[in-house]
């Protein structure tokens, strides 16, 4: 992020260089959206004309669209003219030590098992030189560039690698794809760009890097990952630490492109502010994520752990175009209090011998509603396509809901489809059994829930699997009894 910040800083604010924020307001556009705003965003980013045109086209299309209402989530109408569509990355007020941080927040970090140095970064405390994010960034950047890997803010890629961006931006999620994707295409301002060259295995989990550097993710993020022939990459966004943001509406777009024999693994841990116990506040997370297995033998795997946000609305999908390509979706969605989640996937089989796997685990507690919505589509030419879907839900308490909406569309008779779905209540019998062995009710529930999520957690990068387990415990606090 620091490079992106530099470009913006240079362009708009001299004083920022000294690390002092004198007037934050002047870096934020007044609320409202029209073509002028989009031109200003594009100008701030020093974008080429084609990109401005692309944004404007998206905007004009967006104006003709209506907000989708087919999902099961309920929320008050969003006033799109009351939102500010550009805000330069702000410097958080820096604290001198962890002593100054809200003890409750620290307690959460501790429960999640987040290392001390990283706690400081999350909480906005000055970090010492050894762990300074800039120096870490530099080290990582050097190693990545030795392999020819491009990993930078999207706005930087627009400047330095315009051909790549032009070729792939909107190639998986077209600007007019859906209401929120169109909005994002018009106004996106932050996000990441990754390009892995032919035959390169990315030498590190891009998670490590991301975790430290991309915390100030924006309202309208846009991520583009391209894995060229035979390359491998594992990318992780988000983190288990609770994230607050003053913007209520988040509409991100993520596009993945896997060429022949390439392999992309994309993991998400989403823990945005879910709102309080009465359901006030919280982020609306309306995300479009899609990947395309462009050529033969490619593979895209989505893993997500969704515990935050007041409303989650996302369907990470895979278009299986190449023959023998593989799409996977592993999901844990946990809702508590008044949270709502409507999430799932789409697997579109086009190539021959394509395979997809869907494992979805929904956990509902409190007064929350949790829906799995997924589509498996087997196109005419997709001979011998195979899909396995398993959607399990558990309910904690009797005031929450779990729903499953599987859509299956098969146009080729050689397809093999398997679908399994279960819904169960965390049994009193199970909890009593644990109690009778001396295990407390809270430990019992977290043990049962983690057991339930095991198939998904084991797909997460190692370091996050442990944290994800603890995240379940923290997210379920107060839901029992």
């Amino acid at each position, binding site marked *: 992020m620091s490079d992106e910040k530099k470009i913006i800083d240079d362009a708009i604010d001299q004083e920022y260089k000294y690390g002092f924020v004198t007037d934050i307001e002047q870096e934020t556009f007044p609320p409202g959206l029209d073509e002028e705003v989009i031109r200003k965003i594009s100008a701030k980013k020093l974008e080429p004309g084609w990109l401005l045109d692309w944004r404007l086209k998206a905007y004009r299309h967006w104006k003709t669209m209506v907000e989708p209402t087919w999902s099961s989530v309920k929320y008050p109408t969003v006033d799109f003219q009351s939102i500010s569509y550009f805000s330069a990355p702000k410097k958080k007020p820096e604290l001198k030590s962890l002593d100054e941080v809200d003890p409750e927040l620290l307690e959460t970090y501790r429960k999640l098992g987040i290392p001390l140095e990283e706690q400081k970064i999350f909480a906005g405390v000055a970090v010492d030189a050894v762990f300074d994010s800039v120096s870490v960034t530099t080290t990582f950047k050097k190693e990545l560039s030795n392999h020819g890997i491009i990993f930078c803010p999207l706005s930087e890629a627009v400047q330095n690698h315009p051909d790549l961006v032009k070729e792939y931006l909107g190639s998986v999620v077209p600007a007019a794809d859906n209401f929120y994707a169109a909005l994002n295409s018009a106004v996106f301002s932050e996000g990441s760009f990754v390009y892995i060259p032919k035959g390169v295995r990315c030498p590190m989990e891009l998670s490590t890097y991301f975790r430290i550097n991309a915390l100030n993710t924006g309202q309208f993020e846009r991520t583009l990952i391209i894995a060229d022939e035979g390359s491998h990459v594992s990318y992780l966004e988000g983190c288990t630490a609770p994230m607050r943001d003053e913007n209520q509406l988040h509409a991100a777009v993520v596009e993945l492109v896997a060429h022949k024999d390439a392999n992309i693994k994309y993991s998400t841990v989403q823990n945005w502010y879910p709102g309080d116990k009465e359901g006030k506040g919280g982020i609306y997370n309306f995300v479009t994520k899609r990947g395309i297995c462009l050529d033969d033998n490619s593979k895209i795997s989505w893993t997500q752990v969704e515990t935050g946000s007041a409303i989650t609305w996302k369907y990470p999908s895979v278009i299986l175009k190449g023959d023998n390509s593989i799409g996977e979706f592993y999901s844990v969605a946990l809702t508590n209090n008044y949270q709502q989640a409507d999430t799932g996937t789409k697997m579109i089989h086009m190539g021959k011998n394509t395979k997809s796997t869907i494992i979805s685990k929904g956990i509902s507690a409190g007064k929350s509603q949790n829906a799995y919505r997924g589509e498996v589509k087997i196109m005419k030419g997709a001979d011998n396509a195979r899909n396995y879907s398993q959607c399990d839900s558990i309910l904690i308490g009797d005031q929450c809901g779990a729903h499953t909406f599987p859509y299956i569309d098969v146009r080729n008779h050689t397809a093999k489809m398997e679908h399994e779905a279960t819904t169960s209540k965390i049994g009193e019998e199970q909890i009593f059994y644990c109690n009778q062995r001396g295990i407390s009710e809270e430990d019992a529930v977290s043990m049962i829930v983690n*057991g339930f999520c095991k198939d998904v957690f084991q797909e997460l990068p190692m370091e996050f699997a442990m944290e994800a387990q603890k995240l379940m415990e923290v997210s379920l606090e107060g839901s029992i009894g």
Partner: protein
Amino acid sequence: MMLKIKNLHASVGDKPILKGINLEVKAGEMHAIMGRNGSGKSTLTNIITGKEGYTITDGSIEYKGKSILDDSPEDRALNGIFQSFQYPVVIHGVNNTYFLRTAYNAKRKYLGQPELDAASFMKLIREKMKLVEMDRSYLKRSVNDGFSGGEKKRNEILQMVTLEPSLSILDETDSGLDIDALKIVANGVNNFRREDRSFIVITHYQRLLKYIEPDVVHVLMDGQIVKTGGKELALALEEKGYGWLDGDQL
């Protein structure tokens, strides 16, 4: 005195199930409670271990000299009361080793002892597994997931010998066992007997009592203990059936 139950009355909803149970179990004793289905055997077990859903309308239960009626199920367990379940539940995705170590360490913590690390626990559990002839694959499987009836019951006994309770209540431990499994389970229990450990074996049939020899046998009928005797009482019941005692009641 390990367990002292006095004039215990309990109901489910409005329906009285236990109607004045009196029972004393001394340290080191093996008691058998026999009775037909619906006589209140399982209710008695559940009330001792603290399961919800029962109302105690009268009477008292003392364990090691103190009333336990206000204690939570986990406190009773941590204090050394163990129930071998008639129908052990399945917990998907939680492996036996993890489950049992969590329980074991909960107890250590309760007793103010340091928790046992994974490696030391593995050593311990491997020893205990021999006692009930449990297969090595057990360690990696989820709690009771895909277990045969015999494996489930052996697992209960394995948990018992690992957690080392003072009072063990074995609820219909013989049901669903073939003769080989029955012998293994009985062996596990017999080897665990000690002068400071007591047992209550709840059973419908006399079968298990051939292998686990009780000191005292009680017959439970319609929520009351109608007869108490030595091990010969179990044999008499086997021979004459419960109908024999229906007459007594009249």
